[in-house]
């Protein structure tokens, strides 16, 4: 089925991305330098940087709302370094991710990471007490994971941030 291009859909996609911080999207000339250096693309996430931007330029915002590739971006920012047109592709990817998040279209792995962030202040956390004691460090690291007061502060911040509107916590 061929893509039906329409002004309304293109405008919506471009404006959404610009609103979420990807204002370089209209500068992209589809050279593909960003994708060539992208570790996410190398890891098998095809719709990153170039192709993601292309799909958005074609107005396919809603159509790719479930796309998982954007969550493969590691924020390494190599794309921004190599982009010859000043697009800042990473910002486009993150802008699209913001759009996805606001539509609650993120991957399950991301949900659990966000909830853990809310609970203990770490998106990813492993209990390393024994290992730490083995090398002579205190078992409980001085982080929010063992500090209720700090956890409350983090929860207060997150509850008052736009993140809370997503209804995850």
């Amino acid at each position, binding site marked *: 089925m*061929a893509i*039906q*291009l329409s*002004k309304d859909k293109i405008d919506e996609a471009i404006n959404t991305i610009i609103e979420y911080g990807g204002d370089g999207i209209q500068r992209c*000339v*589809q050279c593909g330098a960003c994708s060539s250096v992208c570790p996410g693309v190398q890891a098998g996430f095809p719709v990153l940087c170039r*192709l993601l931007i292309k799909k958005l*330029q*074609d107005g396919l915002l809603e159509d790719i709302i479930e796309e998982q590739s954007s969550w493969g971006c590691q924020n390494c920012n190599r794309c921004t370094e190599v982009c010859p047109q000043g697009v800042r592709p990473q910002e486009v990817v993150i802008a699209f991710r913001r759009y996805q998040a606001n539509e609650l279209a993120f991957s399950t792995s991301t949900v659990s990471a966000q909830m853990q962030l809310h609970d203990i202040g770490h998106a990813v956390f492993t209990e390393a007490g024994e290992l730490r004691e083995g090398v002579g460090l205190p078992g409980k690291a001085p982080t929010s994971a063992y500090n209720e007061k700090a956890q409350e502060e983090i929860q207060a911040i997150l509850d008052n941030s736009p993140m809370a509107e997503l209804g995850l916590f």
Partner: protein
Amino acid sequence: MAKVGVYVCHCGSNIAGVIDVEAVRAFAETLPDVVVSRKDLFMCSDSGQELIKQDIKDGVVDRVVVAACTPRTHEPIFRGVCESAGLNKYLFEMANIRDQSSWVHPQDPSGATEKAKMVVSSAVGKAARLKPLEDKFVDVTQKAMVVGGGVGGIFSALELANMGYKTYLVEKDPSIGGVMAQLDKTFPTNDCSACILTPVMVEAGSHPNIELMTYSEIDDVEGFIGNYNVKVRRKQTYIDWKKCTGCGACVDVCPGKAPDKFDAGLSKRSAAYIHFPQAVPKKAVVDMDSCLNCAGRKIGSEPKTSKKTGEPMYAPCEKACPADAVDRSINYNPEGEIVEVDVGTIVVATGYKVMEKDCFKELAPQHSNVMTALQLERLISATGPTGGKLLKPSNNEKPKTINFVSCVGSRDVNHHTYCSRVCCMYMIKQARLLKEKYPDLDIYMHFIDVRTAGKDYDEYYTGARRMGINFLKGKVGSIQTLDDDKMRVVAYDMEHGENVEIESDMVILATAIEQTESAKGLAQKLGLQFDGSGFFKEMHPKLGPVETATQGIYLAGCCQGPKDIPDTVSQAKGAAAAAAVPLAQGKVKIEPIISEVHAEKCSGCGICVPLCPYSAISMKTFADRPRAEIDITQCKGCGVCTATCPSAAIVLHGYEEEQIMAQIAALTS
């Protein structure tokens, strides 16, 4: 007994990388007539040249053979060396051991070395028999002609005129201006085409050294560099241009109608018309094919008498003209008038035409909302059919969606393989102009590649992306007609890897730039050649971009290949500079390597006459019998006559029989 010196060049690794130069030098020493044989890293360098000069001055040699690269680039240098050392420069011969040995046999060094020896041996054989020759000179008519009154022709004419040479500017249309006058705005500055062109047109029109010959065509050209006689046909205007003031009164009343060529066929003009509002010269013309002969006033007839009033009945144009320039009683000659002018050099700047959309059946050419880019140019021009408003031809309503299709007929083996060079830029220009004027307009541009190579051009293109113009990589394969008003554009989005379909109100085709239809006839009259793309062929694609194979004829603008305005103007000024050189010198050199008829041997058979590609041979009567005679100014030294003459009566100087036979003997012994 000739004393031949042989000088073998290493040419860096070009020759020495393959050929054993010392072996060739040593072999040359053994050849008959050779008195000295030397080698140098670069014979064309100062030290190499000095070797030759010293041997000539010392009286060691009186014939010079240089075994090196090619006579195409280096023969003049070594001839100059001989001349500066006091030797006749035609006693020099070149052995081309680079092009003919090292470059073509890089895999076989010993074979290449043997071949180089033979090439040297052949050159020595000829050199030993060379005879001194003298250059000839003829005077030059210090006037120039420029054919074509577009922006290229105008600038060539202005340059020549400002240098002080009387210049004839010949233009087939009633006004100068060419295609540039039809354009709305020009990239990448978006300045108004007419605003920048009109002052230049006026300057050309009023320049004391420029004689405008508009509504004229080249009928015939005779002669050679410095001495061209051109017959110019001034087409019949049916209006006395000496009296016409360009007021347009006849245009307003004329009921005859024809498609307006200036508006790319989008509107109609009357039979009596002025080419365009800023025309130079601003004079009216009657197009007899669409003239209705109002009141029975055929050209050359006396007015009928009205039965009611008894007064003579005149045509509306005659009655309207306040300057008495329209008089249909005159029996005009429809062939016009032949004007003969003598000029020294000619610049050809005949421009281009755009391909018609009808050639592209898959792109719905019959649909009125599918138009060529030149038509859109007129549509968005303030002097165009809608006064600059973008309206669909089908119903005069504003379109919501426009698609631009690139490479229509260009980069296409079915039509033209070349890139038309300006389409990307003018499509982006049109899209930007429209987007500025109508921000709601939805614009899609389909490209194979975007080619925006000029100064400030790529910035213009990336700017267009930022304006929200949609670029798609992938050529449109088909346009489907949905109804009288809408079309579906079917393309492939290569970057996306998917088919795309777009409903569109208008489609603009960037049709190819191609050579004009009249170019073929002009080429025959001027002795011009065509390149593989059908444009006029320059002498050398890099080093002779404005010269042609015919001396004294120069090229400028799109007749030599697609070009934008900056490149056309640059080339036009370059062509003018080249065309002024013979005029400034006041005389032109005729190389003596041309043919001569020995009348006492000529049997008068006339075989040579039709064979000469330059029409240089004619039959003249000597002692009551016809004999061939060669015009030295026309002869190019090709040797066809020499090879053909059954009586061996024609000698090609510099390639005489004895010299050629010596070469053959050297190669076959």
